[in-house]
């Protein structure tokens, strides 16, 4: 990576971390937290999609994380941070257990199977009332535990701002990790498998293992996002993790542009912000989604990320001309 590019990513991260301080509205803080959660979910979904597999059960894995973390911290006395990690782990373990049979099926069959799996998860959550509270869900899930700082100060998570910072840092770490994979030979291998899996196999690539690997990684982060969601919201119900949510996540990545890493960041950002910021549109959210989706599919087949890339190239060119003119 060129150092200039590295520097601009660094600035972007700094800006993202400073910006929340200036936001006074509790409502907007809440929206940004949801945004960050959606970005984690969409990016992990996109990672799975780079091997050519579109999961329609991603929200189910988020749900496993959410319920595992909530139940472990409420009923089994784990600390919220242990529970948070356990939530991700539970989603990954389930992914690993089913990876072998699931990863043998391809394309639309994979989508159907994961969709079914996601529905089974919500069904089990709904029916296992003793443990999960059934359709009325779990209430009073504890906030993340207070973090002591230098003995005298401490960070509590009962207000929105610390939660936003926690999820932003989580998001940045996850994005850096996923970007690291995407850019390395591992990501290249994933994309090679997506393009032609027999050719990849004949070059010695263990296709099934790579598919299982990325499925486990993606589901781990989905579980982690779900765990955080549970502790932040304090309330979870099965319908927060059903098929609709999985489809929304898919739309985020398509609108953002599934070929580009930035797509899974831009897509959820725009699609979470637009309907929320203009509150009048809130009831019409599905229509806004469909309108944006159609707009992108027809006019921007590469997704919003391509638009962004073209814009940054043009701005770069203008800047360079400006520098030359001044020199």
């Amino acid at each position: 990576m060129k150092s200039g590019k590295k520097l601009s990513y660094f600035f972007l991260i700094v800006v993202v971390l400073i910006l929340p301080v200036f936001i006074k509205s509790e409502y907007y803080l809440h929206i940004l937290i949801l945004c960050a959660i959606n970005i984690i979910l969409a990016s992990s979904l996109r990672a799975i999609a780079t091997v050519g597999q579109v999961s329609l059960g991603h929200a189910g894995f988020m749900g496993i994380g959410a319920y595992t973390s909530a139940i472990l911290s409420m009923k089994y006395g784990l600390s919220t941070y242990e529970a948070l990690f356990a939530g991700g782990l539970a989603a990954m373990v389930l992914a690993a257990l089913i990876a072998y049979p699931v990863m043998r099926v391809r394309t639309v069959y994979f989508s159907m199977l994961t969709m079914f799996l996601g529905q089974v998860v919500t069904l089990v959550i709904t029916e296992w009332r003793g443990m999960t509270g059934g359709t009325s869900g779990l209430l009073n899930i504890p906030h993340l535990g207070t973090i002591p700082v230098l003995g005298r100060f401490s960070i509590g998570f009962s207000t929105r701002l610390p939660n936003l910072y926690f999820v932003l840092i989580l998001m940045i770490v996850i994005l850096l990790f996923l970007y690291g994979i995407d850019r390395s030979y591992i990501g290249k291998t994933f994309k090679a498998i997506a393009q032609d899996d027999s050719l990849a196999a004949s070059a010695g690539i263990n296709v099934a293992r790579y598919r299982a690997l990325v499925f486990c990684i993606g589901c781990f982060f989905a579980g982690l996002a779900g765990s955080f969601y549970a502790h932040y919201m304090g309330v979870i119900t099965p319908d927060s993790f059903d098929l609709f949510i999985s489809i929304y996540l898919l739309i985020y990545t398509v609108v953002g542009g599934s070929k580009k890493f930035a797509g899974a960041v831009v897509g959820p950002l725009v699609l979470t912000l637009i309907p929320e910021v203009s509150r009048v549109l809130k009831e019409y959210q599905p229509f806004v989604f469909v309108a944006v989706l159609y707009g992108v599919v027809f006019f921007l087949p590469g997704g919003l990320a391509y638009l962004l890339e073209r814009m940054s190239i043009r701005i770069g060119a203008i800047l360079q001309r400006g520098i030359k003119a001044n020199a």
Partner: protein
Amino acid sequence: MLETRKLTKDFKGLRAVNDLELNVSAEEIVGIIGPNGAGKTTVFNLITGFLQPTRGEILFMGENIGGLKPHAIAKLGITRTFQLDRIFHEFTVLENVAVASHLHAGIGFWEAAFNTPQYRKKDGDTDKYAAKILQLVGMDDKMDEIAGNLSHGHQKLLGIAIGLAANPKLLLLDEPLAGMNPTEVTRALEIISEIRKQGIAVLLIEHNMRAVMSICDRLVVLNFGEEIAKGSPDEVKNNRQVIQAYLGIGEHAA
């Protein structure tokens, strides 16, 4: 090096390959010829693990490789090309070969994910290795082109380069010359000879008879899944059964 014993494959009642006894020695170029539907590609799919034999054994360097998965067989040293232009169309030429070379670079998951200096060094070495292979097939001037935009002939050569990337001891070429113009054929034949000079045995399926006769040390002729002749190109050329299978009864050799 490679030996098949009574290799047989049935497809729902149809016997595609019947009791085939094939062997390839080190640094040898062996051609499989025969009319369409003779079972040639099926033999390739059996050797490389894309299909499992109904009966019979496949031995490679004395080891039975029957039942192994394609990627495991590739690791043991047998790679292949495919009949159609099977390449990674969205990648650049260099990326195509590099992605097929990476498995032999010994890179770990974590060092790659965290982009450590060791990883960057190994990654750079892989690119150099891939560039060397592209030089062998004469495509080192096209490294940064998107593979999907290449001409048909170059896509075929890239397919061979991908096959070479996994550092095979035996390379299986499925109609490497199909659709090439005469100049490209000459070039491709030079490359195949060069591959053999590097110590790699080649087993190839090809319909271009003149090319096959000129380059192969030995030929095996299949018809309806059975070996009907084998030997040097000259022996095969004058074999009555071969002439009949190819040209029909009563005609003379081409």
